[in-house]
């Protein structure tokens, strides 16, 4: 299903923090406005208790919940659920616009592995992405956990999965000037920490990947390994350093950049479904 680029433009070029979420119990799409009201009241109450988000600033937080039917893989997936927190300063006039302060959304893109085996009354939206202050994320997360008996966990991305991302998207064909394919490594346990940034010209990375990938449209673990080994070997030839023994911390391609702490930035709308599908898969394996 092709997502309308207009509706999903807000997803692009923002840093999203990733979580896996276990299925929500008793969630009903028809009650979105009720939920928004309840969440708003919860946030206001928490702030009264002194868990203030911004000290010294009088802010009313308005909550909006909406569904995004476009953001899913197939009919079997639940439509994405968007949570928006905006603020209106009490000092400003009634007509002033609400300022968005936090954004979060739940989604499932080809998450059949999970939804197949789930009993009635459970809604599967295993991937959660947030953008904005951590304190708001924690408030929203707590409310959802309490209300729908689910569990949020930060989604770490292993070096293995990071290298899949490089392999998958280094070979992408892009109309305008693509950015470099960059791998960021950190070398642990040294007396002085060392970071190594290894950036490859996008055309050359693509040329290498094209000779590694044997079947278009299909990627195997072997091919990813060969691709990475080639990059490691080229590096070793020059510097005599074993990059494979270093910790792969962050990767960037023209399509997406991802950090091992579970932070991604999606740069190109064209590949959004592919990226979300991979992330959904990662979320599901963390849940199971």
């Amino acid at each position: 299903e092709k997502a309308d680029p207009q509706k999903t433009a807000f997803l692009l070029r923002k840093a999203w923090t990733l979580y896996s979420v276990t299925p929500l119990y008793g969630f009903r799409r028809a009650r979105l406005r009720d939920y928004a009201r309840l969440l708003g009241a919860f946030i206001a109450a928490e702030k009264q208790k002194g868990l203030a988000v911004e000290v010294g600033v009088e802010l009313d937080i308005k909550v909006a919940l909406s569904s995004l039917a476009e953001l899913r893989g197939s009919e079997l997936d639940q439509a994405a659920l968007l949570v928006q927190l905006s603020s209106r300063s009490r000092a400003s006039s009634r007509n002033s616009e609400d300022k968005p302060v936090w954004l979060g959304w739940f989604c499932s893109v080809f998450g059949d592995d999970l939804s197949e085996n789930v009993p009635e009354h459970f809604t599967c939206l295993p991937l959660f992405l947030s953008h904005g202050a951590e304190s708001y994320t924690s408030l929203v997360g707590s409310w959802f956990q309490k209300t729908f008996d689910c569990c949020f966990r930060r989604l770490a991305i292993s070096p293995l999965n990071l290298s899949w991302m490089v392999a998958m998207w280094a070979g992408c064909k892009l109309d305008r000037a693509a950015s470099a394919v960059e791998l960021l490594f950190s070398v642990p346990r040294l007396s002085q920490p060392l970071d190594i940034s290894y950036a490859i010209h996008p055309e050359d990375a693509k040329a290498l990947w094209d000779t590694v990938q044997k079947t278009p449209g299909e990627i195997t673990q072997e091919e990813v390994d060969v691709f990475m080994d080639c990059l490691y070997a080229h590096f070793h030839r020059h510097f005599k350093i074993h990059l494979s023994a270093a910790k792969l911390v962050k990767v960037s391609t023209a399509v997406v950049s991802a950090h091992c702490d579970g932070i991604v930035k999606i740069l190109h709308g064209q590949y959004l479904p592919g990226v979300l599908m991979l992330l959904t898969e990662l979320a599901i394996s963390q849940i199971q």
Partner: protein
Amino acid sequence: MDETVAEYIRRTVLKMPRDEIKTMLQKWGFLSEAQLQTLNFHQIKDNISQEVVQLCEENSADIKQAAALDIIYNHIYQNKRMWSVYQMKKSGEELEYFDITDFKKKFKRRLRSALKNVTITFKEYEDNAIWIRVAWGTPYKKPNQYKPSYVVYHSQTPYVFISASVLKSNLPLLCQALIVASNYHDIREMELRSHSLNSLKDIVFKRYSQNFQTYTPKPLQGGNVEPENADTRIVQENRSEKERIHKLNQEVFGSGPQPKLEFAQYRLETMFKSDPKLDVLDKKEPFRCLVKFSSPHLLESLKSLAPAGMADAPLSPLLTCIPHKARNYFKIREKKGLYPESFVNP
């Protein structure tokens, strides 16, 4: 006192850590000891700086004094700035007597002939370093005191360290003034940059411990080796490998502390070579990469790679050449012909 001067002094004092303000003002020497005694250093910095400005008002400070205070701050906090290294060239071998007055005169004259609105301040330090501060204006605007360039020149050497402001367009003029004033005929920027000014000096003045080829006898094996268990042989091998790595590291890096650099950057334009069995990329064009190493203390970090098992020993000359080649920016191309495995650095 000019309002802008007052504001500039106020902001300069605000930058200083509270318990260092007194020392810096003393070094400055513009306020008398009696005046300094009247200052209360136990209040918030905002108030201290206001009091300092008032005292400066009493003494009618002008921009020259304010600039001098700024040099003192930047000399102590030199590592907050990024420094580049430039090397000057003389046409002949003449050993000229360096006259500091002549240098300053020529420098100021050269700059002012091109740009009316500049503030130029000099300060000499014990280690033969001449610090020059230049605040840049335009024909129509007074100099921007908040974005000055700093130059550090050791008159006995052809090296100049420059921490330019963002106004890069003034760099050629600055360079010209330097060579005219110091009687050199050319200046070029070296591929060497760091926050640590002293380390840059260590590298170009060759003040770090270098790798002298000395004979170190291998330590005697045997003797008190207790036979522990069947694994003794494995332990032995590991130990001799560790010793080999340690010895190689010593040879390459020397045994003293390394100059402190924060990064090294390599632009690679070499060919991609791989095992033909893999059946991968076999292009005739370079595989273009940009590699950047960063660390709070890069050379110490690189030195510890082989002992940690992260790298082969000896480490690649691309990395070990950094101090003696005095550069941390490299462009590496393939060397054609005889030695396909070695690299050429243009």
